[in-house]
């Protein structure tokens, strides 16, 4: 009872903090849409390519944005001393992490709806499979970004380190995730590594839903892998969060 109450209180507190910073909220919602619009403009004369890569990027952009926002927010909690204060209360470590997940998850829902709405209705993206799967996958990717951001922020001592984690953790996943070069055409070592990275599954699922009328077992596998990684990152985040400093 106490833990549920303080988890929701933490979610409400984080959302209230963001309410005092409307520009950040606007950036979370608008930046993926602007990037997708830019892409659509770039490929004005080659819509086949756009239709191929845009759905995958619907997963990648929210993933990157939520990763950065979460890792900076939690780091700020550390440097301001509020983390130490929280750790000196009864608040459980998981309460804090789940509180963060819920707050950023809510933002991610709006973000996913806006970006996929733009693709489907603004740019007339043709999706052979169920549209809900596209939206759910985009949302799962945003949650994955949030969970990984929470997890790696435990290893960042300064803002500079936290920002560097983006190129370090996120860009490799994007580069070898199968979007730039199909997995089968990569050197076999890289291909094997790619299968250990969650973004690979996100990109695969989003590409499949565009071309496959019925959800295949691979699509479902992709979704469960991403959600499993979210859960694992949340639990690892709670484990690596230290109540006591050395």
């Amino acid at each position: 009872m106490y833990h549920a109450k303080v988890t929701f209180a933490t979610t409400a507190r984080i959302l209230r903090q963001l309410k005092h910073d409307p520009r950040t909220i606007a950036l979370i919602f608008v930046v993926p849409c602007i990037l997708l619009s830019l892409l659509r403009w770039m490929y004005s004369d080659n819509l086949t390519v756009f239709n191929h890569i845009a759905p995958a990027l619907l997963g990648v952009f929210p993933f990157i944005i939520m990763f950065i926002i979460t890792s900076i927010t939690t780091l700020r909690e550390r440097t301001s001393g509020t983390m130490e204060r929280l750790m000196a209360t009864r608040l459980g470590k998981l309460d804090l992490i789940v509180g963060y997940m819920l707050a950023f998850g809510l933002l991610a829902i709006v973000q996913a709806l806006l970006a996929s709405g733009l693709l489907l209705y603004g740019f007339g993206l043709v999706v052979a499979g169920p549209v809900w799967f596209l939206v759910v996958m985009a949302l799962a990717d945003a949650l994955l970004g949030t969970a990984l951001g929470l997890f790696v922020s435990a290893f960042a001592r300064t803002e500079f380190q936290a920002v560097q984690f983006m190129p370090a953790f996120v860009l490799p996943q994007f580069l070898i995730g199968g979007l730039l070069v199909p997995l089968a055409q990569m050197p076999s070592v890289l291909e094997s590594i790619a299968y250990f990275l969650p973004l690979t599954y996100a990109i695969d699922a989003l590409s499949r839903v565009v071309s496959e009328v019925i959800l295949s077992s691979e699509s479902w596998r992709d979704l469960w892998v991403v959600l499993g990684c979210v859960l694992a990152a949340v639990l690892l985040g709670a484990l690596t969060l230290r109540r006591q400093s050395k």
Partner: protein
Amino acid sequence: MTTTVSIEATKLTVKKQKTVILDGLSFTIQAGTVTGLIGPSGSGKTTLIRAIVGVQQVTSGSLTVLGKAAGDARPRANIGYVTQSPAIYDDLTVLQNVHYFAKLAGASAAQADSIIRVVHLDDKKDQLAALLSGGQKARVSLAIALLGDPEVLVLDEPTVGLDPILRQELWRLFAALAARGKTLIVSSHVMDEAERCDELLLMRDGKLLWNNSRQQLLAHTGASSVEKAFIAMVSAEGNA
């Protein structure tokens, strides 16, 4: 009146990397007292405070708070903690800050509102914490520590930069809380503050110079103030 031990340290040692920060401290603190933790900057006050509230790992020795190892869930629910620099959310209002921590401490919203009055911030309650002065932020931080009526209050330099009237009021509040059986530990690098405490822990270089009442310290050293007594103790140690 029977006395109850609220905090007990036995050969408490904390090392960070290879540096010894707290060097085998042994002391007891009784419930119902205001203990001044006094020492120059760098003497280990904040590390001791962090160990008591359970956010600092103890290297060796033991430290119990309310009969349980420091850092246990039970003492944590019963400790109010004011960090040295005000640990509050700059992007929340005073009221939002206090109400959030009230939920964590299991305190009612009504109690949260009355505590804002205790620290004289009712006219600022809808202001964003980022816009407050240093002293006002410190008061928000103190208000949060008072939530839930904790048995133990640990205050790291709580009165720095406050106006003298408010400081006097706070010391009265601390005394009133102690009279109700609460345990208060107040750290300061200003020796003046020591004059307001019944009990003293004098620290220097990670070691305890004194762990007893202020009266006895003055009697023991024959000094007229804690500051003079501190100097007498340090030079006596140098000669020994």
